[in-house]
């Protein structure tokens, strides 16, 4: 079911993919420098979860 869309090779799509990869890599590097080798406390995961829930809630307003 997973497939890359057929118009994948257009220049805007390549740029978007590049921007996405840079975003992910930046978040990974930033988290790695903050967290270090130790596992983060449960509070960090909880705060990320709450932020995710807030975004999900606002986005869901579109279907109301």
């Amino acid at each position, binding site marked *: 079911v997973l497939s890359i869309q057929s118009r994948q090779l257009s220049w805007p799509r390549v740029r978007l993919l590049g921007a*996405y990869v840079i*975003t992910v890599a930046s*978040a990974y590097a930033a988290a790695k420098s903050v967290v270090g080798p130790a596992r983060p406390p449960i509070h*960090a995961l909880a705060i*990320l979860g709450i932020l995710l829930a807030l*975004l999900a809630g606002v986005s869901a307003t579109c*279907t109301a």
Partner: protein
Amino acid sequence: MIFVIGPLVQGASNRRTRFVKVGAYISAMVLSASVLGASVSIIGHSILRQVPITWLALAVGILLYGARELGLLRLPLPQSSWQVPRVWMRLGPFVYPLLYGLAIGIGVLTRAPFASFQTMVAWQLAMGSVGVGAAMGAAYAIARGSAPLLLGLTASDPSLGLLRGTRWIAERQGLWRLANGVFLGLLGGVLTSIALA
């Protein structure tokens, strides 16, 4: 598009009635979303607690669905096509906001076209913490109910402002899809780092 929030304020004779109806809707939504979050977390706690790659698998899933939100991938998004029945409106001015809130707060019963919702449920499952699961559910419901309210309160006519606020959010699906894609990308990157630590 049928706005759920519209009937809550239209036809209400006074400000107090509107306030009670909207309050009942949001309270019921917070209750059901919290109960669902706690329930999912209990299931996650009993099933996934001993699975070491849970967070890494979730990180990979988040990255894939972030790419989906940006239109880079085609992935199925599990969701229901059920809509809250209109006949519930005949059940009385204070009963239907409660029923609407309870049904919509559960989330999985109705449409969920943005991947942040499914990701949230998966996060609750992976966390396996009843308290965090319930808090995430409450945050989801408060954001869903309060976003148009906050926009509405800035208008001179709160009822009209509430509808306009809801419409303002609903007409910007592209913006929310972009926000979902970027946020899931960031979240996936952070979670990958955490999972590999």
